[in-house]
């Protein structure tokens, strides 16, 4: 069976959690052939992952390359003026009909892109004129400052042009189209569904749309551009959910957004990330000094500052305590590391906090602490937690994303950005050897039961055969709900 797997900005062209996951999945599913459709920025990216043997093809879809993708414009294929107008209207429309209109227009855009040059059409002067006229036809917004200009029209059409580039590529031919993120990666999957009836699976580690909102808060574009672009993303994500035969979020927390955007609960199945237990054997000893270990990117989203502040409070009660931070800042954003170091100096705990940088063997980082801490303000389903748990280390973590689902009752979960409670939780575990060891053992048991790579692989094996067997159109398919075994994992299952 052949799977077309769609990625955006990740595998096999960059490192990170999602890429690790893709690599694990493909290597584990030896019975399937994979052809990758990787959405990339410029097309000049270098492959950073050695490809597994069952990857039969890699197609790059650059969004920002200068050469327009697809066949050149021919005179027979004139500008699809009506189609462009309908696209613009469906994005500016805020009524309930907008979503079905968008679905229709996207499919027609795909049909056009397969025979004409969609990029040229969206980048034409006529398209800019249509958008500026559509803006002017609508009642001017109460906030006069945001009156859209031609610069906004040009920028907006440019963004749409690049976002829709994947529609111009030949639709992938496979038994199943698996988009490992919602959003633009869904476009090639939809193309396959429209052309060949290929069933679609959408996986989400973080909620794509939520990330789009956050990214665009600091965008250089004015409000009208941001509004139309996010409207496009919202409609596309909603379409991705509604067209998918199965949605496989990386944690239950994501379901809230998915269902909010119209995903049918019966099609959602949570599949947790997993680690290979062989890489993280149970740790036998503990370090001599009471130590808190932390593993991750030194980045504001990880809120290392809260951890440092919490540690300062821990030190007041346990002067021998140490905090060891393993990881480095992303390239070009070293300023946050400096800020954390300055904070350590301000709090007078420089000697007790060490910035260790990258480690060769990550299990060593978990071995370095009695407990492992995670202070992030946003997470999907963090690898560092389940790795630490597999090693048999208990964790103190913030209540974000899928953290509570991972930790369960084998560690302590505290609210984000709250040094006081984080310090209390750390102290509880550091001071009570018995509790710590008990939770550590429970953590390893929980991880081995639920968060192994084999578990994730067999879950997808199951989803693949389930979804591909039920080609759309067969009676009974849409009503059939997918069992979500994650329900068993959650404490409220018993209370249901």
């Amino acid at each position, binding site marked *: 069976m052949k799977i077309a797997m769609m990625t955006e900005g990740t595998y096999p062209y960059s490192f990170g959690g999602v890429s690790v996951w893709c690599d694990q999945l493909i290597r584990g599913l030896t019975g399937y052939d994979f052809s990758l459709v990787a959405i990339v920025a*410029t097309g*000049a990216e*270098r492959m*950073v992952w050695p490809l597994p043997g069952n990857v039969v093809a890699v197609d790059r879809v650059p969004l920002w*390359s*200068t*050469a327009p993708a697809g066949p050149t414009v021919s005179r027979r294929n004139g500008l699809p003026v009506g189609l462009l107008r309908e696209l613009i209207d469906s994005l500016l429309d805020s009524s309930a009909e907008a979503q079905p209109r968008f679905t229709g227009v996207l499919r027609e855009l795909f049909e056009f892109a397969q025979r004409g040059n969609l990029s040229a059409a969206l*980048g*034409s*002067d006529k*398209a*800019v004129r249509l958008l*500026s006229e559509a803006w*002017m036809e609508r009642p001017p917004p*109460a*906030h006069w*400052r*945001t009156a*859209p*200009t*031609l*610069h906004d*029209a*040009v*920028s907006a*059409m440019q963004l749409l042009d690049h976002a829709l580039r994947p529609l111009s590529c030949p639709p992938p031919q496979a038994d199943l189209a698996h988009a490992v993120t919602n959003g633009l990666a869904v476009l090639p999957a939809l193309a396959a569904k429209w052309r060949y009836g290929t069933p679609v699976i959408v996986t989400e580690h973080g909620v794509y*749309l*939520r990330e789009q*909102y*956050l990214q665009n*808060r600091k*965008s*250089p574009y*004015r*409000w009208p551009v941001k*509004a139309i672009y*996010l*409207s496009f993303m*919202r409609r596309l994500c909603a379409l991705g959910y509604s067209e998918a035969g199965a949605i496989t979020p990386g944690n*239950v927390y994501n379901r*809230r957004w998915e*269902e*909010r955007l119209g995903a049918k609960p019966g099609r959602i199945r949570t599949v947790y990330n997993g680690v290979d237990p062989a890489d993280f054997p149970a740790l036998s000893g503990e370090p001599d000094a009471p130590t808190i270990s932390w593993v991750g990117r030194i980045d504001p989203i990880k809120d290392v500052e809260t951890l440092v502040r919490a540690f300062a409070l821990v030190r007041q009660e346990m002067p021998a305590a140490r905090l060891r931070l393993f990881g480095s800042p992303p390239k070009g954003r070293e300023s946050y590391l400096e800020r954390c170091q300055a904070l350590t100096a301000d709090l007078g705990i420089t000697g007790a906090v060490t910035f260790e940088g990258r480690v060769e063997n990550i299990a060593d980082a978990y071995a370095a602490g009695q407990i492992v801490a995670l202070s992030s*303000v946003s997470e999907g389903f963090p690898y560092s937690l389940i790795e630490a748990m597999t090693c048999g280390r208990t964790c103190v973590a913030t*209540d*974000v994303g899928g953290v509570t689902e991972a930790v369960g009752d084998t560690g*302590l979960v*505290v*609210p*984000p*950005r*709250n040094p*006081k*409670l984080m310090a209390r939780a750390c102290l509880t575990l550091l001071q*009570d050897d018995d*509790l710590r060891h008990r939770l550590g053992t429970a953590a390893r048991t929980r991880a081995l039961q639920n968060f192994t790579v084999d578990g994730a692989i067999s879950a997808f094996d199951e989803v693949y055969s389930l979804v591909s067997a039920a080609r759309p159109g067969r009676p009974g398919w849409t009503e059939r709900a997918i069992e979500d075994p994650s329900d068993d994992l959650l*404490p*409220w299952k018993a*209370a*249901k």
Partner: protein
Amino acid sequence: MIARTLAARERTRVPPGANEDQRLRAVPAEDDKPRDLAELCEQFVLVCESAVDPLEISSALEFDGLNDQAARELYGFSDVFALAEEMYWRVPRQPAEPEPVADPWRISKLRSAMHGLIYGLPAVCFPAASGLLNGPGALRALVVALLSSWALSQGLAYLGYARLGRSDPVQAARVMLPGMTAGTGATALVMALTALTGHVHLPVLAFGFGLGTYMLGATVLMVLGAERLLLIVLAPAVLGSAAFLALGRPHYLEYATWGALAATPALALGLATWRARRKSGFFGRRRGATAKKREAAGPLITAADLRGALPSVGFGLVVAGLLVFPVAAALPGRPDTGALIASLPLALSMGVAEWTLVWFRRRTQRLLRATREVPVFAHRARLTLFTALLHYLTAAALLTATAAAVMITAHLIHPHWTLAPQIAAYLALGGAMFVALLLQAFGSRIFPLITCAAALAFEVLWRRLGVLGQLAACTELLVTLTAYAAHVLGKAVRHAP
């Protein structure tokens, strides 16, 4: 479903039978979160005012660590989505304008003037080298060298700028070295072929080869943004030649001057190689790692690159032809003084052209941000184009007048009214080059190439017309290019940021 999940989540806070430690999780957020909705709206006022829909506020709340539990316990809403929706309706839209981005088209007049000097300074080397450039076939060899060096350096510049345009300075630096090596090889080959087709003195061939390598090295340094190094490169040849000419070409200084002339291409090659290697991260990295990365990256120069470079190569060839053909056609006989005084200011004016191009771009960008209607923009953009052209032509005319005045006072040339049409022709050519540059900067590369080639063909075919033919060809070229630019650059979409 949502309700079920939420109810369930609430229960997770205090699992039944949880021990004291696990109750920690149930402690409400004891942080800076405000206790009532009005205060929360105040805290998130910027987010709410700029939000495009309630979901944007939801994502901001969640990112700040506010979850469904807090939405319920602190503010009495069923979840974050419901809370965000209320906030969206409470706070009216008043979006903040985005932070002004750094102007990517900022270029100082000093830098432009420096570019002008870089284009113009080498001119002083030709009279100083005249002792070298004699014998049969010298002119032919020189013309061939000029044509090939312009063509090759334009092609190389394209390869570099295409990568810079993709925000990939490392790849741009990496493509420069093989590009320069191949270009140097091609120049050597061209000079060798020239020697084979007729008798040419060795110094002439060496000068032509030096010219070619200098142009390639200079291109590398310009692409890599190292204009200051380029001034160092130019120093020996320019200072040597200037001193030689100022002292009245003393015989005893001839060899020293030629040595200085040879130093410049050598320096250009050396510094360009050093700079390209440094920028491509060649130093300080294990060779094995570099080789491995190279393998992963695939071919450095693809067939698409070469296809893309073709119009640039052609344009370089045609422009060099337009510049040197009138000079070459005037010979044999005495050197054409008109061509000399007209072409030097033209080279210097390329600095003005560059600056005016940037001025035009910034002006139209501002226009785009201030205009709401397509026809209004088209009209104003055209006016801006004509203003820019006028600006350039005035500057070029002033430069020409200054150059002529200097040369006349220095008794280098004798003023004569017959020079006027030739100067006018070169001015028109300068204007045409400016518009062609503008069109290329806005992504139109084929039309300038075709029209310039047509103008050159006209000059060659009707060379009997002499200066008048040149004047007609250049004026026609200027008019055609300007009309085309007025059409193309009136479109808002061409000014996409």
